[in-house]
């Protein structure tokens, strides 16, 4: 155990020494890594919070059930009872033909809407608020309600939900693709930096190999070096994301305030920030290991 700690202690000290040998070059590399990580993170935060806000602004989707004319009160009560106990129904509003008529009169601003008619032609209406916004679930509910003999017509107000779902899904896919591209760029940047370090330390590596150093012994300081770069790059990226968030929120308040709208991007949750740093460390390990392994392969006896 002590040997393990000492081996890794030496490797960490060596990596730190390398990091401090060319501080400006390493700082620039860390900034490139930070930018590459911060851009997709910022976009993800903004899109994710925008989708949440859009959902809130548009209100939950609703399914309107127009009942057949002449449906009796007891039948309506049974339907309401059944819908109130439905797993997928969050809440239910009932609009009687009389209430519908009053609302129509109110909207039209006249009480003469029934002129020439001997009875109220408006049907009883049930407005169902589903518990899910998933377009597939809403379509299933629409089919289910349409099958009821008491229901004349079902109107699903899900178009906006479908569009929103499609747009946020598309944007999230685009950000994922962007994040993958940036992750690949980060790996290449770290690989190249480590490759330069390895090339500069060629003689040292050769000497170590001549003395029987294992590949792991040679690789270890460079892997720590790559992981350090990614760790600091990830840390700076979190800072950058927070700065962008603060600036964005300030601009958002300035622009949307006059329209009585509010859109504030939330801070990156600690769990996500920690997960991101861990991912960055894994990428650093992978990039540095690959760069050193390629070099070590060329040193094998021939």
């Amino acid at each position, binding site marked *: 155990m002590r040997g393990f700690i000492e081996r890794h202690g030496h490797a960490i000290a060596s990596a730190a020494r390398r990091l401090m040998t060319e501080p400006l070059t390493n700082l620039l590399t860390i900034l490139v890594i930070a930018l590459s990580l911060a851009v997709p993170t910022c976009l993800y935060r903004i899109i994710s919070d925008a989708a949440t806000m859009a959902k809130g602004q548009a209100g939950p989707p609703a399914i309107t059930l127009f009942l057949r004319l002449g449906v009796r009160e007891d039948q309506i009560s049974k339907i309401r009872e059944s819908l109130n106990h439905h797993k997928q129904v969050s809440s239910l509003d009932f609009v009687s033909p009389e209430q519908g008529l009053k609302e129509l009169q109110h909207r039209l601003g006249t009480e003469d809407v029934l002129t020439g008619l001997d009875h109220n032609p408006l049907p009883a209406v049930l407005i169902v608020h589903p518990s899910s916004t998933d377009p597939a679930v809403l379509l299933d509910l629409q089919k289910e309600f349409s099958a009821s003999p008491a229901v004349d017509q079902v109107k699903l107000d899900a178009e906006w939900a479908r569009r929103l779902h499609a747009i946020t899904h598309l944007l999230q896919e685009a950000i994922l693709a962007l994040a993958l591209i940036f992750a690949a760029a980060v790996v290449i940047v770290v690989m190249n930096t480590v490759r330069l370090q390895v090339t500069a330390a060629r003689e040292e590596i*050769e*000497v*170590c190999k*001549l*003395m*029987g*150093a294992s590949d792991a*012994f040679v690789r270890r300081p460079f892997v720590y070096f790559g992981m350090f770069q990614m760790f600091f790059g990830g840390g700076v990226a979190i800072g950058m994301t927070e700065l962008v968030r603060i600036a964005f929120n300030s601009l958002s308040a300035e622009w949307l305030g006059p329209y009585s709208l509010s859109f504030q991007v939330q801070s990156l949750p600690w769990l996500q920030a920690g997960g991101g740093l861990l991912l960055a460390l894994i990428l650093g390990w992978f990039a540095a290991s690959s760069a050193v392994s390629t070099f070590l392969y060329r040193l094998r006896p*021939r």
Partner: protein
Amino acid sequence: MTDSVPMIEINALTRRYPDGREALRGIDLQIEAGEMLFLGGPSGAGKTTLLRLIAGIDRPTSGEITLNGQPLSRLSAPALEALRKNIGMVFQEHKLLLDRSVEQNAALPLQIQGLASAEIHKRVAAALERVGLGGRANDSPLALSGGERQRLCIARALVGKPALIVADEPTGNLDTEYGEAILTLFRSFHLAGVTLIIATHDERLVQSLEGRLVHIDQGRVISDGRTLS
């Protein structure tokens, strides 16, 4: 004649470089454990090439080197690493790490072996003392003269207490005083049973130590005898 297996057995060894030049052309040698063997011959004779093949740094074009009964060509990477840990190497071009101190350079083989820091410090201090660099532990190799660098290289080879020392022109840059000190050091290791293979032009070195002298020229063994001591 003994029944024991030689420590190193070299059979029909050839080494051809990518440019087609043949550095070794069918070397046959047997080296017993504890032997002190000098490789003599002019520059370009193939001495360094032979040392590199014995240390497992390069692979032969044909032929085989067997070390303690194990053919080098069939050794796995970890086995080759273990072998190298047991060989002390003194390079003609020193191969010192100029961004590390004298002490850190000498400590490298022990760090590779995974020894504890306290043990490394103790053994390095003793090795540096033996080669006359006891007071220079914290200096940079850049502050050392050519002879001092050579002595540091020797200290680094000895510090791991190897069973085999392979040295390429170990006294080439040493003045008389330290040359004598290094000869004494080699003699003490020889007496302790360490096998030494030394490639050298240095007649003084060859004639001051008792051992076996193998002359190589144009990649072939041209004589195999004893030194005059």
